[in-house]
């Protein structure tokens, strides 16, 4: 009994989701209560496990027996998974509580919303606790599904419905590669269980098949963690409610790709990650980091700035994975989860208090209206831009450290991205919080309620302290993690330099317009700004190539078949044939008794003739 306790991580949210959906659809308060209870219970269980509650190995569940392949589903409880669960359930619990305040007064169905959150908690726990790629993949698809539900929560808004579809379909592309990768892994290692992978590789290290397998698995991470070229769905996913963006599209789900890759590195062994695969992974991460930091620099929507910033931080983590620094990747994942959830929730509080205004050029002066929220947001900002002493600083430095040791270009990319990060965050803070209120909505802004402020305080505390050794050593999801003390070396000064350059540039460019309460970006009409605002034309490129090109041709082909073959030939043709035959046959039903008799007797004569001829 005791050994099966970890299954509660999966069962509780699932039961909560089912109850919300099926029984409590008309009782939103109770549904919220059930969801929050379930997430708090999992959080308590998780803390208990971390404090040394020994549960033993949970029993496997045999999904369906296949000759020679073990497809059982089971849980893997180790330092990596259980500490990751703390991040998931911890932020999950705070987001659930924050949602109470955020969704108050929203006319949509709250039961549906909380059911979506619970089903997300279930699927995310599947990914984190899975002991084999099978369960990981199931969770992988389930988080995609719950993300679809939650992005499209306000489905009556066309943009939200479109964004939900875009997220789901883009993820499918990556998941297809992931599935191929899983098949290849099964072939190469003979098992999908993480515990059975090490040392069972059937090919030589560095073989092309292995590279292919790793890169196909990486495809899954590219989709889920929104890396270039599949990054387009994440900014659009901001159409969902802000707590959802904080939980799913900043802290946990999008980090699942990083988690999965690190899990594979740990279980397969680092030598399974061939040089080619690593270079590709690191390059994709670096490209994503640079491109999205650039795009973030000219966004006006507060959530979109944060979304692009998430992309760019995920790029950092993927880059660290490519540099075989799984430890640094998980460290950054963990600090990023706290401070980015903080930033999103604070942004959510600001959005609610500004009557759902998301454009930073219509805010302004918020530092007087809602000082506590703004203070929390600034704490998150400091962590994100890696101000020394805040959590992001430690984790970012460990990634830069890893890059410094292995590849100079990647190190430079990391520094440049750090400078851009500072630039867009300082710009955001200056414009949104500085100066005077630009609109009536911002004028009437007021401090958020306690159900929103308390989670913000907790997250702000984590954003500040989670990077220090005494916290990080205990909580970072990596076995035997040890935070290194800060040294006065190249990475430290490079990071500090990027901070000063980026911040200084932003101050130089935007301090005046913030103080003057300009109504829009003074550089908005500049050519570079226009290119960045159009998201470097990547989305338009996809629109033209895939939707305008491939899909239109395909639509033509399908409609030709539909119209020509199905409608004309099968539909009309069959109708005509039937009518024609019917008219022909109706002639012989003339209604004349004589005719019938003649035909019948002729038939008899023919039969007799046939008999005579044949026999």
């Amino acid at each position: 009994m005791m050994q099966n306790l970890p299954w509660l991580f999966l069962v509780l949210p699932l039961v909560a989701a089912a109850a919300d959906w099926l029984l409590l659809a008309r009782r939103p308060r109770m549904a919220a209560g059930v969801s929050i209870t379930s997430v708090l219970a999992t959080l308590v269980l998780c803390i208990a496990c971390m404090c040394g509650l020994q549960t033993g190995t949970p029993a496997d569940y045999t999904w369906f027996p296949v000759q020679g392949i073990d497809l059982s589903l089971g849980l893997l409880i180790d330092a990596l998974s259980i500490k990751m669960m703390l991040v998931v359930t911890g932020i999950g619990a705070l987001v659930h509580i924050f949602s109470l305040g955020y969704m108050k007064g929203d006319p949509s169905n709250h039961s549906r919303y909380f059911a979506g959150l619970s089903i997300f908690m279930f699927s995310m726990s599947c990914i984190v606790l899975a002991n084999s790629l099978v369960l990981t993949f199931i969770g992988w698809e389930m988080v995609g599904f719950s993300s679809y539900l939650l992005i499209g929560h306000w489905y009556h808004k066309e943009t939200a419905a479109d964004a939900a579809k875009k997220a789901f379909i883009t993820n499918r592309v990556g998941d297809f590669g992931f599935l191929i990768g899983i098949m290849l892994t099964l072939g190469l290692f003979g098992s999908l269980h993480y515990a059975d992978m090490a040392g069972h590789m059937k090919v030589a290290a560095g073989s092309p098949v292995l590279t292919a397998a790793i890169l196909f698995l990486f495809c899954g991470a590219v989709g889920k963690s929104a890396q270039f070229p599949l990054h387009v769905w994440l900014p659009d996913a901001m159409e969902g409610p802000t707590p959802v963006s904080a939980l799913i599209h900043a802290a946990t789900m999008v980090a699942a790709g990083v988690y999965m890759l690190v899990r594979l590195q740990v279980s397969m062994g680092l030598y399974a990650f061939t040089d080619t695969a690593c270079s590709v992974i690191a390059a994709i991460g670096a490209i994503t980091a640079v491109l999205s930091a650039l795009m973030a620099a000219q966004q006006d929507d507060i959530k979109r700035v944060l979304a692009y910033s998430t992309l760019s931080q995920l790029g950092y983590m993927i880059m660290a994975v490519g540099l075989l620094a799984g430890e640094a990747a998980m460290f950054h994942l963990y600090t990023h989860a706290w401070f980015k959830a903080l930033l999103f929730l604070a942004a959510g509080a600001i959005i609610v208090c500004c009557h759902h205004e998301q454009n930073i050029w219509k805010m302004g002066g918020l530092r007087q209206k809602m000082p506590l929220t703004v203070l929390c947001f600034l704490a998150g900002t400091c962590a994100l831009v890696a101000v020394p002493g805040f959590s992001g600083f430690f984790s970012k430095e460990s990634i830069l450290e890893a890059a410094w040791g292995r590849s100079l270009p990647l190190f430079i990319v990391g520094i440049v991205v750090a400078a851009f990060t500072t630039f867009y965050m300082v710009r955001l803070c200056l414009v949104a919080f500085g100066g005077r209120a630009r609109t009536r909505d911002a004028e009437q802004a007021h401090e958020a309620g306690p159900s929103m402020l308390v989670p913000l305080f907790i997250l702000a505390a984590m954003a500040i302290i989670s990077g220090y050794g005494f916290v990080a050593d205990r909580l970072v999801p990596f076995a035997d993690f040890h935070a290194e003390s800060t040294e006065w070396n190249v990475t430290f000064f490079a990071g500090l330099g990027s901070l000063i350059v980026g911040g200084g540039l932003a101050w130089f460019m935007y301090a005046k317009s913030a103080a003057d309460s300009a109504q829009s970006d003074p550089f908005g009409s500049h050519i570079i700004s226009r290119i960045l605002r159009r998201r470097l034309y990547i989305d338009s490129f996809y629109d033209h190539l895939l939707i305008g090109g491939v899909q239109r041709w395909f639509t033509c082909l399908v409609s030709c078949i539909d119209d020509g073959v199905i409608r004309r030939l099968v539909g009309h043709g069959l109708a005509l044939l039937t009518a024609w035959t019917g008219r022909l046959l109706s002639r012989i039903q003339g209604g004349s008794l004589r005719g019938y008799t003649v035909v019948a007797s002729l038939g008899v004569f023919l039969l007799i003739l046939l008999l005579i001829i044949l026999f």
Partner: protein
Amino acid sequence: MTPLSHYLIFSALLFSIGLGGAIMRRNVLVVLMCLELMLTGANVALVAFSRAQGLEGIPVYDAQVLALFVMAIAAAEVAVGLSLIVAMFRARRGVESTSLTSLKD
């Protein structure tokens, strides 16, 4: 002894007359009578064959039994047929087969 062919020719004649009448006459009553004629023709053939197939003056009785069956069934058929004709006459004041086109129209 009369050869078999004579009987068969006679039976064929009866049958043909019956068939011709059934096709050509319009009065349903006459058509019914012509049907009886055709059955009789068939019976004649049956009995003739039964005699011809018999050994040493003893006919094959199977065919004769069949002929009796045919007569019995013909009688039953006439009973049904006549009552139908009566019903038809009551309904439409005539027994012309060409007037039976209400389903077609």
